């Protein structure tokens, strides 16, 4: 037998669940899941890895779009495939009957329960929507394509 250096897979999954706190943290008021929201950003915006909280600068605006975006459906617990922990929203993210006339190409996921702290930024093809529905279809929730992965 030999020992193998590794970050334990269970730890990665538990990080996503908020089980471990290696630094000072918040006092959680409940054991329920946090609410994750999704906000859309103009192609001219500058969202990225440096974001720490939701920021309305560069966010889209238009008919039937509410600043801050929409809540993400989260019915599937973080899990792992092999040594990769992953989490993916359990339903597509849809903005219904919106008119967004200025080109947009990014979505920010953020935690509205924890002070709007940023989670991740994802980009897609730049587009506009007129009196229609924009849908972000989620990838397969596995260790290769899951939306949020710790590897």
């Amino acid at each position, binding site marked *: 037998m030999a020992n193998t*250096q*590794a*970050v334990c897979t269970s730890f*990665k999954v538990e990080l996503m669940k908020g089980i471990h706190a290696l630094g000072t943290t918040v006092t959680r008021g409940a054991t329920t899941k946090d609410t994750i929201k999704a906000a859309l950003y103009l192609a001219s915006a500058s969202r990225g890895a440096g974001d720490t909280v939701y920021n309305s600068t560069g966010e889209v605006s238009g008919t039937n779009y509410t600043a801050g975006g929409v809540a993400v459906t989260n019915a599937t617990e973080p899990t792992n495939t092999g040594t990769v922990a992953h989490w993916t929203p359990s339903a597509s993210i849809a903005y219904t*009957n919106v008119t967004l006339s200025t080109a947009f190409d990014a*979505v920010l996921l953020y935690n509205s329960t924890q002070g709007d702290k940023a989670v*991740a930024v*994802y*980009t*897609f*093809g730049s*587009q*506009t*929507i*007129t*009196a*229609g*529905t*924009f*849908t*972000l*279809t*989620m*990838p397969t929730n596995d260790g290769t*394509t*899951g*939306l*949020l*992965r*710790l*590897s």
Partner: protein
Amino acid sequence: MLVQTLKGDIDHTELEVRERVWFEANARNIHIEWFHNGEFVRSDGVAIALKTQNISGQQQGV
């Protein structure tokens, strides 16, 4: 089936649909434009299989 448009609800059989599809590194995008009597009245967009990104968990740093 009625479709919401800039000109109000219109039966889908009266609408012409034009579709644009384009690909990026990890995303397939579909943009659908609806026309009524040659006039643009609505567009829908779908982004499938979003670009994904790893959040670093380098095992070498253990």
